[in-house]
């Protein structure tokens, strides 16, 4: 798999481009979510699930995952081309993010043969939607302190407790679950076990959470004597913390092997530039205002910073001093950027910044305000920006733990 014919790659890339050009539907007739965390209606869910299935069937998702489990068995360069073609042609996001980016690569890395055979294909086809159960109501950033209990009883573990911020919880068939199998270990981390937990069973209940945007997106998940088969563990009992940390490396992009595609599209500086041209300041386009221009340039430099830092991860000799630095800081850079540029966009809309989604006077249907409010899901979820600074400070710069 290490070698491939460049001609084949070129042909594949061209075919992918043509396929997405033909199949992307630029206007489904309703507002699509920007990220997998923002799926708020059944209409959005079914549209995106069908879309992912269609792309997978066409051979443009999981192209580099092993054939034996349902992937395309090709060199990663092929998937990279397919993903580029998606972006170029404005494909919607890919719904099954937890599966494509976390569970899939994790199972290919650490899963058993049986687990790979059982789960990989359903992840790619979106037949099996995955969610993640790490955070708890009392333990958000402090994952290691998770209190949801899993007690071994014969061929099962009996689970009790609650997980929160379960993205796609209403739709998910499986959850990657971090639960406590022992309470008497000297280190709290050693009592944790990593499960592949079924969601559609007795004793598992989800309750929708209304977000600050006014929409539904997450659920809280309650376990009441739910039974998980004992062979649905990744790694070993008590080894869950290590597996969870590996999972987060996949999430943060510090480790490769994801299925391809993308799970979020951001507001970009060019769209905001268009907004600045059409809004007014003193009877002239806002873009002629000196302070608007200055801030606009700052955002363009920053968006280019983030793009270049992402490219730079591919240039080993430029990353010798702190090899994980760029990957571990990318979440911090990108999510904080998204929050601030959306905030700036609201300010560009002047008095209409007062409108929200649902009012006919809202600029761009209220997109900017909703994007700003939703952007906090990324600066908080998956480890807040403050936790990210601890991670970079401690793991990249070697500073003592706080």
């Amino acid at each position, binding site marked *: 798999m290490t070698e491939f014919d460049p001609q084949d790659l070129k042909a594949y890339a061209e075919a992918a481009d043509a396929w997405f050009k033909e199949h992307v539907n630029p206007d489904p007739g309703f507002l699509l979510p920007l990220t997998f965390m923002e799926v708020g209606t059944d209409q959005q869910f079914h549209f995106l699930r069908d879309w992912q299935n269609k792309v997978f069937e066409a051979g443009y998702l999981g192209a580099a995952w092993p054939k034996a489990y349902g992937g395309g068995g090709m060199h990663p360069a092929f998937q990279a081309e397919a993903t580029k073609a998606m972006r170029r042609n404005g494909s919607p996001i890919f719904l099954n993010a937890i599966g494509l980016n976390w569970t899939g690569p994790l199972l290919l890395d650490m899963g058993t043969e049986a687990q790979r055979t059982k789960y990989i294909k359903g992840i790619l086809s979106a037949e099996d939607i995955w969610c993640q159960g790490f955070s708890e109501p009392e333990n958000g950033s402090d994952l290691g302190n998770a209190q949801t209990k899993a007690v071994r009883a014969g061929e099962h573990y009996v689970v009790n407790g609650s997980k929160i911020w379960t993205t796609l919880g209403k739709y998910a068939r499986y959850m990657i679950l971090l639960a406590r199998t022992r309470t008497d270990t000297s280190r709290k981390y050693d009592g944790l076990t990593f499960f592949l937990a079924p969601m559609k069973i007795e004793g598992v209940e989800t309750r929708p959470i209304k977000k600050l945007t006014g929409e539904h997106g997450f659920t809280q998940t309650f376990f009441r004597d739910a039974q998980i088969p004992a062979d649905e563990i990744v790694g070993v009992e008590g080894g869950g913390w290590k597996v969870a940390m590996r999972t987060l490396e996949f999430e943060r992009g510090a480790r490769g092997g994801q299925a391809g595609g993308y799970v979020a599209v951001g507001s970009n500086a*060019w769209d905001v*530039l268009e907004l*600045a041209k059409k809004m007014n300041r003193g009877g002239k386009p806002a*873009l002629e205002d000196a302070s608007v*221009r*200055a801030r*606009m*340039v*700052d955002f*363009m*430099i*920053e968006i*280019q*910073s*983030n*793009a*270049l*830092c992402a*490219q*730079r991860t591919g*240039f080993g*000799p*430029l990353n010798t*001093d702190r090899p994980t*630095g*760029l990957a571990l*800081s990318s979440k*911090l*850079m990108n999510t904080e950027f998204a929050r601030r540029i959306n905030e700036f966009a609201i300010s560009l809309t002047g008095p209409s910044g007062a409108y929200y989604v649902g009012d006919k006077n809202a600029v761009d249907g209220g997109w900017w305000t909703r994007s700003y409010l939703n952007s906090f899901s990324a600066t908080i979820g998956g480890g807040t920006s*403050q936790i990210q*600074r*601890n991670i*970079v*400070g401690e793991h*990249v*710069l*070697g*500073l*003592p*733990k*706080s």
Partner: protein
Amino acid sequence: MQDLGRLGFSEDQATLLDVATSFCSAKSPISKVRRLIEDETGHDPDIWREIVELGWLGIAIPEEYGGAGLQLAEVVPVMEQMGRYLLAGPFLSATLAAQAILAGATEDQKRTLLPKLAEGQIATLALCEASDDWDLVNIACTAQSTASGTLRLSGEKRLVCDAGSATTLIASVMHEGRPALVLVDRSSLGPKALRRETIIDETRRAWSVTLDGVEVATDAMLDPARAQAALRHIHLSANLLQSAEMCGGTQAVIDYTLDYLKTRVQFGQLIGAYQALKHPTVDAYVGYEQARSHLYSAAHCFGEQGVGEIATRMAKAQADAAMSFAADRAIQFHGGFGFTYDCDAQLYRRRAIWHASQFGDAAYHKAKLADLLL
């Protein structure tokens, strides 16, 4: 969507980065940097000879003129490591002077001068004046043709780096109402024409130079038709190489601060454990990585019409922001020691101020970018 540049990294850049890192770290320990601050010349001539022997002066000079035939992109890793280790010397001046000649001289002048520069003869640029303008075509100094077929110069140049060690100065002047570049032998300047200036970055040497009464031959003028383009090329080349020197310095000042945060104890714990210090240090580090990504993008795209200018201005803007912030916080986070001359944080803060003052700071380049992008 406009092309803002992209990353690339050549084999030659990788090799030079390795060699320059080892060389600069070995030749320029901080004790030596501090010793040279007290030295009138300001650099070690033996190290300069070694740099010449390494061929670094000719990296971006074409082979036909005695150089290695590479690009400024390959000078960038060398300049970056010199910045990281605060290695003193006229490397930046000499490299920029060679670029001025490449972009602005006649064929004869190139054949005469470039091989000498590749072999280590020191030349420097004399561009700044009392107008305090970063626009290099705003020039008050003049060159006037005389009846005897020479050019008579007048006016004063400022912040002429390494004028004390240079053999040749390349001065910008107005000639017949248009900008021109003129070669001036330092030996033709009177003893009182040079005044060493007191500047913020004590690892550098800069001079005021009075041109009044200096006469040069007419063939000392570079190709007048190319003067504007040459000044533009000098401006962008200087900013690219300054960005490199600043990126290196930013890395160094962050590392220096990290050492302190990992060893200094207050209230019973290492101060690096306090998030009030840890988080801004991470912000400084992220700013540095962003600046370095911009730097190598600018190096890679430098020769491309349009994109090269955008990428270079972004690189300087980001390098200024990153180094100024990192060095500013470095002083603060060293507490009382940070307020002393002995703390190295000041070396980097002073250097960031110097670089911001030369060829445009972040605000200046952002204003230019606004016109290019919006």
